[in-house]
């Protein structure tokens, strides 16, 4: 078939342009390190990239939350541990006081110490976290959980609601401990046979009162009560430990997830340098060849022979 001269030039220039375009694309890939500079050039990968990025962003949010919970649990643990120490200190005082070998002055000193310990217990139960929220008031985090009443008793003003946060899709962890749990609960049977539920603050107050009157029976009763309450707090410490371990595991899982997704994202988005460079050299070779042939072929014309 006859090929018109115009057509001839057009085809050749088009081919050159195409090759140049492909080289340009490879050059961008190599320069940006990304396979697709714009989503329209490969929308499927771009969409996949978007959803992977979304997953990654969620993992980061979970990670932030987990670290927050971990910090919070660490604070809780240290508070609860000190709390337990003070409960056992009260128990020690009770044992000492019940021995009967101490003078009234000594008992008086013990009472003063017990009062100090009670204050410490109250202030520990009213601890706050880094966000300035009370640790042990349920969801009423802006309300001081343990408040002294006019009659000297300690009332719990928080609630028992659980505060949970999402640390993975469909996976929630509890982040707070109720003040009521911290204060503990034991059953005391009165002389008249009635039972009543009382907490550490009530036991401590009764103990202080018993020291004041040096009532031996009440002091010795406190020993077992403090012991039981101390054990209850111990249970909470163990529980906090378990929860912290679980959190660590979660954090590791999230780290792993992130690595996997980052790898996937990299597969989709990042330039495969060896492949790109190979293609680039072969494309450049092809372009050079096309340019050479163009130059040569266009020189060929019958008119050259008309001289």
């Amino acid at each position: 078939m006859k090929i018109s001269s115009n057509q001839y030039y057009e085809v050749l220039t088009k081919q050159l342009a195409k090759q140049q375009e492909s080289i340009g694309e490879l050059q961008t890939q190599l320069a940006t390190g990304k396979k697709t500079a714009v989503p329209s050039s490969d929308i499927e990968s771009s969409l996949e990239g978007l959803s992977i990025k979304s997953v990654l962003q969620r993992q980061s949010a979970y990670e932030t939350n987990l670290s927050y919970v971990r910090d919070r649990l660490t604070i809780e643990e240290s508070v609860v541990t000190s709390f337990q120490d003070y409960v056992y200190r009260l128990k020690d005082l009770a044992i000492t006081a019940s021995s009967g070998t101490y003078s009234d002055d000594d008992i008086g000193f013990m009472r003063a110490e017990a009062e100090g310990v009670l204050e410490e217990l109250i202030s520990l139960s009213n601890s706050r976290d880094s966000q300035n929220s009370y640790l042990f008031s349920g969801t009423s985090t802006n309300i001081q959980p343990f408040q002294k009443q006019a009659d000297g008793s300690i009332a719990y003003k928080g609630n028992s609601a659980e505060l949970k946060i999402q640390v993975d899709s469909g996976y929630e962890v509890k982040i707070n401990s109720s003040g009521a749990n911290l204060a503990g609960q034991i059953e005391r049977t009165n002389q008249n046979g009635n039972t009543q539920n009382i907490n550490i603050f009530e036991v401590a107050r009764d103990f202080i009162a018993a020291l004041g009157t040096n009532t031996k029976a009440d002091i010795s009763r406190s020993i077992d009560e403090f012991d039981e309450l101390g054990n209850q707090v111990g249970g909470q410490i163990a529980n906090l430990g378990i929860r912290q371990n679980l959190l660590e595991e979660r954090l590791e899982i999230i780290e792993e997830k992130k690595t996997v997704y980052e790898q996937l994202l990299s597969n989709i988005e990042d330039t495969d340098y060896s492949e790109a460079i190979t293609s680039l050299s072969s494309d450049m070779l092809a372009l050079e060849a096309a340019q050479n042939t163009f130059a040569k072929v266009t020189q060929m014309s019958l008119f050259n022979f008309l001289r």
Partner: protein
Amino acid sequence: MTDILSIGASAAQLYRQALATVSNNIANLNTEGYSKQTIESSENTPSKRGVYYLGTGSTMERTGRAYDQFAEANLRTAQSNLASQEPIIKHTNKLLNYLGSDNTSLSSAFDKFFSSLSRLSAAPSNATLKQDFLASSEYVASRFAATSAEMGQVDNDVKSELESELNKLNEYAEKLGSLNASLAKHSKESQQPSALLDQRDFLMLEMSKLARINFVIDDAGIVTAGFEGSSKNTVFVDRLGSTTVGVQYAQDSSGQTGIVFDPFGDALNVGTVQGGSIGGLINLRSNIIEPLRADVDIIVSTFVSEANLVHQGGLTREGLINQKLFTISPNYAMTEPNGSVNSGVQVSVDGDQESTRLLNITWDARKRAWNILEAGELTELTPNLNDQYSFKYKDLSVTFKEPPLAGRDYRISSNSRPADSVKVAVQNIDQIASADRLIIEASSVNTSGALAKIDFGYRSSPVIPSDAIDVSKPLGGFGQVNFEAGSMAPGIVIPQGDYDFEIELDASVSDDFAIQVITSEKNHLVGKVLTAAEKTFVDNNKFFNSASLYGSDYLNETGANAFLDKEIKLGNYNSNELSVTKIPLQTDSAGNGSTIISANQLALNGVSLGQLDLAAGETLSAKDIASWVNTHSANTKVTATSENVIKVDASQIDFEKSLLINGVEITGLGALTDVVDLAAKINSFAAQTDVLARADGEGGIALYNRDTAKGENISLGSNVVGQSINALGLTNSTYTGQLKFSGANIDFSFVDYAAGAGKASDLAKLGLTTKLSGSASALSDMAVSISGSDGFSLDGKIFVSGSIMNRIPTIEDPLEIKFTTDTRFQIIDTNTNTVISERDYDFDSQIIFNDLKIALDKMPAQGDSFKISANLNSAGDNSNLQRLLLIQDAQELSGATLQQGYERALSKVGAVNSLAKISEEALEVVYEDAVTLESSISGVSLDDEAADLIRFQQSFQAAAQVIKVSSTIFDSILSASR
């Protein structure tokens, strides 16, 4: 004559022309649309010499045009197909690059929103995180608007490109039309100048780039053109010239684009335009851009409604529920008649209204006033002199940027693109509803130690039986309500809410039924004690909560003993005055005397009324009732008066008929002609009838008792057998008179409804309806049903006042769940100490009450109690934020999450984009082929031309040699003769 010289001369002439043609070909090598020209020569007519012929040389016939009609048509089709892909690729690229990029995609906006929400949920009282959450809400809303604007911008680009392509088409069509006029000079195409034909073919090719066009070429080479597939009426280029085509956009958001023939004349729709850039652009609008915008709108509105649903259920730090997180309000824009947007006006709207509106605005220059037409309602507004181009109309502020043209119709409509108009409703961090609205606390004295959790959103709307009437639906009177016989099925339902109702039922004297009001939790509030069978009906009816146990503690109770301390009144309660205009006919037919109402059935103002008797053979009259009521006046403080006035309309009076009053015939009526005489005539019999008459001043008369017989019955009749209507035009019957009760209160009630003392029929006997009135309960639905042996169809009316539509406007009053045994509990309204529901506890199904689900973590014990109250002091509660977070994973977009839905919408566009790219590549090949074919026929090849040049040059040299030879011969002859 044939001689060598002329042969040589003709040949030299021919080859000179041939060389010129070749030169012309070379000269036009780069001329667009140029077709290679060829020489067509022919042998001259030979001359006869005796028995033989001698050739006489050759001449140039004409220059031919290397041209193939089919190759041209082929090229045009390839051109149309190829050109249709380019705009699709170009614009979908734009859309994909915007919507699919990391920074501008909605996907990343959602990510930002939810991750900020997630962080806030870990520390819900942290002001910085709250602020960050608000900012990310604003960000999401602004991304919606920007995305919508971007898609709108692409749509506008497409529209303006379409308009410019149409302008090109019109321009080419005009040129082609005038070319047709030049071609009309010759009747054969072969006679036409090549240059004109080249131009014609070039125009056709260019037009094919714009759309697939059907060209028809006649013998003279004249072209008619119309869009492929369109009718003959819309051919826009013919031998006479061309007609413009225009564009019209659909007013709705369908994205339809119409091409219109002669837009300022006949304005015919040409139907579907395919191929070329115009076809591509039209296809792009309706099949890609608009569906994408619709998809995005659905994603946005789903996100907003889901987020609002959750947010409205939560409690803010300000202690409010029902607060929206986002609002959607429409944007207003002015549109031109062809549907395109006119930016010359600015409209803003106050408030949050979601319906779409259309306004037609005209400026009346003479009156200096705006006329605004909306939904058939015309408003005239005279603007402020200083600022006459802006005005406020209802909730709209309209500003024209340029002076309006008098008389022109400006259309302003609201578009219903949710994505355009999402705004954050929450103003400050204290309005974020992060907490649950209620909190549940186990009582400290509970012995089981069970902990309770509360969750929301379990409310199913009341099961209103299809044949029952819902009083909360706006209606004035309902006509009839049908109560099913003996089944206790609800005939009327009073759904929970904060409103008052009054239901008026019109019973007849013989109806024997008891009106029952029972809550959906099976609290019997009003009625007669149920039989065992009736209780079974209640237990089996789906309206009533099957978990609840039947209770009658509040049955017919009043004051503080009533259900929720709000009593429901049954009877007929009035203040100051009560008139009864019609007392049903009640006659002692047995003739022994009878009791109409037994003693202690009805009470008036709390005083039990005695027996109402009827003397032997009598018919109960207003006077009888009045005197019965008046025997109790000292206690009831109610006095009753009676009268009997019968109105007679003038038009009904027929003097030809007979009239008996109280059995006495009024004679001589036939001679009368007017009502005054009739009254006088009746009065003349008053001594016998005890009835007087007077003209009523309106042309009729009124009959009434003489004072001595005030309130007694009046019987009317006629003495003609079979005549049921008498001379007064009234039915022959006993007329029982009217009653009027006076007193501070006139409250009729039933003495002991629970025991069956007092019935609606007792009130009916006095001509009174029975009314049921009270307040709807905020905590349970109520059903009105009827117990008794029969079903009834009763006339009735309903009156409702208060906020019915907004059923959960405030937080519930405190509730208590109290276990009366280890397995049975009551739900108690603490403020009124009312047991709303009593149920048996089942650990597996837990407790579902209205929209609440209360779950205990272990079996409770007798005496355990759980308090549910407003969660006002929970700065640290993140429960509602947790619920908001769940939207991220909710599959609300037909099985897809927001993220997936967005990706799905984009991948649809992506598929079109890649398909168009592939098609373009394929069509490019087809096009190249077509070009190669066409150029192989019509194109100029320099090598060919060079060869021709050499050929014709040599031929010319040879011809010159022939001339030289002839000259030599001539010279020889001349010298021979010298």
